[in-house]
């Protein structure tokens, strides 16, 4: 079995993000970047399936500018076998990304595609769903476990009311939720080894996809700020304020 893991380069989750001065996006200069945390979980799960003997090869793919190669290297350092870089400086929407990922998956003949459920910059939560729809393959969204079996995969999904277990056929598209696993750190020797692993570069046009955006960002602004209120020193003071001042209980 071949597993494809799409990964995205995003602003590190610990960075305090600020809107830029011309209100077109957020400040990106000198900001620490990292692999999207949900993509790390996706890579980890693919590696575990390989280590359990269910897969022969794990391929990481990222679409974006040259720097996306750093993120691919992170995946290779974790243990993925090779990388695919879809090189473009254009702004990419999930639909376009899904079209490109479909082309890569079909070219590679992958049996399983593991994505993150959400990128923490745009908070889209869309690409995996779109990819499954375009490919006409089953979707396992928000999974917290996956097991390979004869019929395909048994997955458990995190849903608003609890958990849901489904059996889906292979090839399949799944998206990783937080509780799927705890991703490993790349060791120094593996980081060195990753430098020698191959990354295949291509353009969207090579994949037969035209980048055409449907959404125009009109402006980006700071959210309304919340002011810190007062400190209380005991239960009776708190209850009094909630009852008589805020009137919420």
């Amino acid at each position: 079995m071949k597993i494809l893991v799409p990964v995205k380069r995003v602003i590190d989750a610990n960075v305090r993000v600020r809107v830029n001065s011309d209100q077109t996006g957020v400040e990106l200069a000198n900001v620490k970047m990292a692999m999207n945390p949900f993509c790390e979980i996706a890579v980890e799960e693919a590696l575990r399936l390989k280590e359990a003997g269910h897969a022969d090869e794990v391929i990481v793919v990222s679409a974006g500018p040259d720097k996306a190669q750093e993120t691919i290297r992170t995946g290779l350092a974790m243990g993925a076998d090779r990388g695919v870089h879809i090189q473009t400086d254009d702004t990419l929407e999930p639909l376009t990304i899904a079209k490109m990922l479909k082309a890569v998956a079909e070219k590679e003949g992958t049996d399983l595609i593991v994505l993150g459920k959400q990128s923490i910059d745009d908070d889209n939560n869309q690409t995996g769903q779109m990819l499954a729809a375009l490919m006409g393959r089953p979707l396992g969204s928000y999974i917290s476990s996956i097991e390979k079996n004869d019929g395909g995969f048994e997955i458990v999904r995190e849903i608003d009311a609890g958990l849901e277990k489904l059996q889906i056929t292979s090839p399949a598209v799944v998206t990783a939720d937080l509780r799927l696993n705890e991703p490993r750190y790349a060791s120094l020797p593996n980081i060195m080894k990753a430098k020698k692993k191959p990354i295949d570069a291509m353009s969207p046009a090579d994949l037969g996809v035209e980048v055409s955006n449907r959404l125009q960002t009109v402006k980006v602004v700071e959210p309304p700020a919340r002011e810190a209120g007062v400190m209380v020193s005991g239960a009776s003071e708190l209850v009094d304020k909630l009852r008589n001042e805020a009137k919420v209980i």
Partner: protein
Amino acid sequence: MSVLVIAEHDGSQLSPGTLNTVTAASKVGGDVHVLVAGNGVSDIAAACAKIGGVSKVLAADGASYANDITENVASLVNAHVGDYSHVMAPASTFGKALVPYAAALADCQSISDISEVVDAETFVRPIYAGNAMATVKSSDATKFITVRTTSFELADDASGSAEVSNIDDAGATDWVQFIEQMLSQSERPELTSAKIVVSGGRGMQNGENFAMLEKLADTLGGAVGASRAAVDAGFVPNDYQVGQTGKVVAPDLYVAIGISGAIQHLAGMKDSKVIVAINNDEEAPIFQVSDFGWNEDLFTAVPALQAELDQ
């Protein structure tokens, strides 16, 4: 212009999020129709027909829709999408899985988690865990949208008298087989629509200690939530998680107990009307967004608060 709202329900009850979504749909202008898919949905279809502002209910009744299988509901939506300028669903796990899937089938780019309708093409949505608000304009023929339910009022669920029309089952995929659901059982109000939420974090130390918060929530008539750290540690189930990648809540009162206030947690609760924080670290970031902060050990504060309320 006409908007198709996809109803969310559990087989017996319509989710309140559907009512918030109808309000968002009404702001677009034009007719609002509601699509209900399920196995035995006549009662829910009747409930949808009573929602104020809804002029038509499309009811698809069939075994294909017994368990919100994304593929099946998406094909159904797709069979009707030609009649609509907008398709909207609540940004719940149901809607978040469904809407992008259906959008891709129609070659459209969906818009996630909108918090404001500016006009029929333009919407505001939070990005970067709510650290920025983006206004986006869509050029798609049909706008596929998930709605941040806490940003819109509940539509009234009694004044409507829409016609209900039955639509054909669009069939079921054989790729996906439902096995079971493991649902959290609770008598408490549902987290995303509760008026009061009492949430615990890593500071709770273990699952047993959450009994204190359950008692407090029951006294206040509220729901219990948690931070990711508390869920990851196994104190409480996954469906308690509030935050950027969990549930978004905006109750009248949110009580954060033993929660530091990481940006990812704030993303899910900072629109609450009144925030109370109980934390023994006076530097905890949660105090910067709370209306009432109490710098105290929670194992002292929570029993004291309970005793005060019990009086």
